[in-house]
């Protein structure tokens, strides 16, 4: 019945990265290399177009790393994730315009509002089965957009424009495109790192336990509902901060930026990159947001291509192109803490 043969085979699967490319991808310094590249680009090419594309891509990376908490770590499919960004962007825009505050100072209010949004969406729905949850989040996403489209405070279909800049100290305006890009890159880098660290903590493990088997997690004393709600709240915060950056970048917010297509694109970044693996997700987000800029001629077909790619990936490589590494260092059991196996070792 049991094949002990497997014992000898299994350790071999922990293979050291073979070629230089995978060594680079697995290396601990990869994050620093990526950050250095992101900072270096404006010194090579700082046209408004490039800065615009890069800033947008960085915000997209932030969204993807936030959605990765919900979908990748916790296994909850959120099809309306962009709604959290909408809440963040609108809150930032409305508050900063009403009180003539720099956007930076709206962050506390944004945090409160997005956490509230996460609770409102999560609390009633997180007890649902996963496929129902997906549809309900989609519904919430649409509700958010339609509401923004119809309320006076959100400016209706034309939205809010003329949002004050992110910060101004004396004569130095952080809103200048290059400076704003650097601000965005550092915020995004910090948040991506934070998300990755959360994933490797006690809470991150609890998310994975829930993803893998809710009943077993409950049996270990984990309140699955609370844990899922926390995933939602963290996801919402990441989305909300993305919203602040969005409002700062475009100095305008309008409902059509928050259509389902946007939620789907963020989801694709997460899924194609590799659910649960921060590096994969960041790469996925960069590809999804930058590829269309590089292949302008194929713009018509890009969504079609994304859709087909999504199906192909799910059928042939459901863990994504760059899956989470399922391994950790072994330790040869020393057996000095406990009397090893008293009589039964082979």
């Amino acid at each position, binding site marked *: *019945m*049991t*094949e*002990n*043969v*497997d*014992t000898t085979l*299994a*350790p071999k*699967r*922990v293979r050291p990265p073979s070629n230089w490319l995978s060594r680079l991808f697995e290396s601990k310094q990869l994050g620093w290399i990526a950050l250095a590249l992101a900072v270096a680009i404006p010194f090579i090419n700082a046209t408004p177009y490039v800065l615009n594309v890069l800033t947008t891509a960085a915000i997209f990376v932030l969204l993807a790393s936030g959605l990765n908490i919900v979908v990748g770590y916790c296994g909850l499919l959120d099809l309306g994730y962009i709604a959290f960004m909408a809440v963040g962007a609108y809150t930032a825009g409305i508050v900063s315009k009403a009180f003539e505050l720099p956007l930076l100072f709206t962050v506390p209010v944004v945090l409160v509002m997005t956490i509230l949004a996460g609770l409102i969406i999560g609390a009633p729905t997180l007890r649902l089965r996963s496929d129902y949850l997906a549809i309900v989040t989609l519904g919430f996403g649409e509700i958010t957009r339609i509401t923004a489209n119809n309320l006076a405070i959100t400016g209706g279909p034309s939205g809010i424009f003329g949002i004050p800049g992110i910060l101004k100290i004396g004569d130095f305006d952080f809103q200048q495109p290059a400076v704003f890009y650097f601000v965005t890159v550092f915020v995004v880098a910090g948040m991506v790192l*934070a998300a990755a*660290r*959360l994933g*490797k*903590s*006690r*809470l*991150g*493990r*609890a998310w*994975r*336990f829930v993803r*893998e*088997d809710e*009943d*077993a*997690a*409950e*049996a*270990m*004393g*984990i*309140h*699955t509902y609370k844990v899922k709600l*926390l995933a939602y709240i*963290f996801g919402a915060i990441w989305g909300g901060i993305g919203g602040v950056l969005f409002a700062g970048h475009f100095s305008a917010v309008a409902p059509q930026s928050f259509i389902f297509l946007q939620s789907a694109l963020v989801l694709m970044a997460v899924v194609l990159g590799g659910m649960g693996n921060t590096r994969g997700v960041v790469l996925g987000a960069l590809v999804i947001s930058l590829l269309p800029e590089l292949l302008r001629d194929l713009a018509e077909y890009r969504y079609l291509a994304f859709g087909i790619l999504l199906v192909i990936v799910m059928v042939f490589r459901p863990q994504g192109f760059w899956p989470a590494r*399922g*391994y*950790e*260092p*072994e*330790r040869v*059991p020393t*057996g000095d*803490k*406990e009397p*090893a*196996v*008293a*009589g*039964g*070792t*082979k």
Partner: protein
Amino acid sequence: MSAVLEVKDLQIAFGGVKAVDGLSFDVHAKQIVAVIGPNGAGKTSAFNCITGFYKPTAGSVLLNGNAITGKRPADIAAAGVSRTFQNLRLFPDLTVLDNVRAGMHLYGGQSWADAIFHTPRFKRSEAWYTEEAHRWLDFVGYTGPRGVPIRNLAYGQQKQVEIARALARKSDLLLLDEPAAGLNYSEKQRLLELCNRIRELGTAIVLIEHDMGLVMEVSERVVVMNFGKEIAEGTPAQVKANPAVIEAYLGRDEDEEVPHGDA
């Protein structure tokens, strides 16, 4: 000595079917109680009631004198009950160590803020998690790889890890649902010896088991169920000699052989 677990007149019905119908027994610290009975007798349903996965229709469950009847599984686990499942319920994509860390989840010692800022407290906590997980794997005599996803491992190894995970919870009561199913002879011997060592930790054990040899050898008392009802309770020797038990296992046919110890 007061009982760790007291089950009183436990009942659960699905539709019209009474899966458990008036089960009562108690378990004391350092005691091993076996629940036996033919397939479909309601043993696993009883476990699910005790651990909160089913809400019992009637009756009560007390842990160390406190009622835990009908509470959420997570609350019951936190109160001091841990379990294994009849068909392994591990976290297949996670490593062996992570699976064991699940059992230690309640002994956190770190918050999410610690994790984001990698505080010294976080590092201490993570080191503790790893060390403790290794310790429990050593304790159950697990010799396989530890850093690999558990889905790659042999069945017997997975069973060991599941027990390690339940032990890592350091609960007062451990419920084992058919721990010997699918194990070979030497693995069963190790399981028997492991049960005795768990008892030495001060943990009370309730086990559902079909392997009569194991049951007779390891348990102080045996509860026999059939069709949801408790038909006998006593020491292994008493139960073995009980006519109702013999009938439940072998039917009423007079020509049948008298059962021997390890059916």
